[in-house]
C-alpha cells in the first residue's frame, strides 16, 4: 500500500482548481468525471509524481458541518511543506491570497496560514533544521 492521494473538501471545484494552481502554484494532475461525480487532483510541480491532493466537492451535509467547524476553530484542513515559508508567503500573498497567520516560529517549525477561498484554512510549514 502507498499513500498516493489525500483529499480536501471544497465548495466549488472550478474555483478550487484556479486557486490551487494559479495562486498556490500546484499543477492539475487528474480531472475526469463520471456523471455528476468529478475526480479532480493537483500535485506539486516540484514533485509531479508525488502525493496528489484531491479537490473533492463538498456536497455532503456531514462533511460541510465538519469543514465549517474546524474552519471556525482556526484549524487547517491540510498542510503543505516548504523549504522557504517566507518566500512562499510573499509569493502567494502577492497573488491575492488572504493569510490569517504570517510566518510564525513555533516548536520545530515556522508556519503560516491562509484561506483557500473554498471553505478551508491551509497551513504552510517549514521544518527547522536541528
Amino acid at each position: 500500500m502507498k499513500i498516493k492521494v489525500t483529499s480536501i473538501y471544497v465548495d466549488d471545484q472550478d474555483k478550487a482548481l484556479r486557486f490551487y494552481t494559479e495562486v498556490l502554484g500546484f499543477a492539475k494532475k487528474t480531472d475526469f468525471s463520471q456523471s455528476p461525480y468529478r475526480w479532480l487532483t493537483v500535485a506539486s510541480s516540484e514533485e509531479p509524481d508525488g502525493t496528489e491532493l484531491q479537490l473533492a466537492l463538498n456536497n455532503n451535509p456531514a462533511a460541510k458541518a465538519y469543514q465549517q467547524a474546524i474552519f471556525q476553530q482556526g484549524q487547517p484542513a491540510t498542510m503543505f511543506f516548504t523549504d522557504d515559508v517566507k518566500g512562499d508567503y510573499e509569493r502567494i500573498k502577492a497573488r491575492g491570497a488572504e493569510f490569517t497567520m504570517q510566518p510564525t516560529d513555533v516548536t520545530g517549525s515556522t508556519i503560516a496560514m491562509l484561506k483557500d477561498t473554498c471553505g478551508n484554512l491551509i497551513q504552510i510549514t517549514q521544518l527547522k533544521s536541528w
Partner: protein
Amino acid sequence: MTNLERYTPGPASGAQIRKDGEKWTLILVRELRHSREKIWEALTDPAHLREWAPFDADGSLGTVGTTVKLTTVGAPVPHVTETTVTRADAPKVLEYKWGGFNMRWELEDLGGGTRLTLWTNIGHRFISMGAAGWHICFDVLDHLLSGTPIGRIVGPEATKFGDWQRLNAEYAKQFGIETPNWPPKAAQNS
C-alpha cells in the same frame, strides 16, 4: 445469442448542446414505441431505474416534494446525493437534481409512442461522454420496455464497452469539441 450480444448501439443522433457561457446543457431526444405511462414508471420507480439508469434511487421520483437519495453507479468513490423532486406532472414532465446536474425529462405523446427529451447540464469537458452514456442507457431502457432486457450498462461497464468510445468520439465531433482524455492515464497503465 443473448439479447446483450445482439446489441450494437446505432450512430450518435438526437443530441444537441445549448451553451450559456460556462454552463452547457445537453439535450437528448429519443422516440420510443412505448406509452408515456410506461416510460414514466421507468423514469420514477426505483426497481425500474435499477434496470437501466446510471443511478439507484432509494424511493420513487414520481411525487413532487419527495426527498430521494441517488447513488451514482460505479463512481470512483461512493457517491450519494440527496435530491428533492421539484416537478412531477405524470406522465409529462419530471424535474429533479442529480448531484449538481439539473435533470428535466419531457414525455410527448406520439399517438401510442413517446418522444422522450432529457435536458441536463453536464460540465462541458465531459458532455460527449454524457451523451454517449445516455445514448446507451436509452437503448437499455428501450430493450427493457420491449421485454428483451439486456441489463444495465453504466459506469465502468459502459466505458469498457467499445461502442461507448465510438459514440463519445461521434458526439464530440457533432458538438465540435475535443474528445476528453479517457480512460485517464493512471487507468491506462494498470
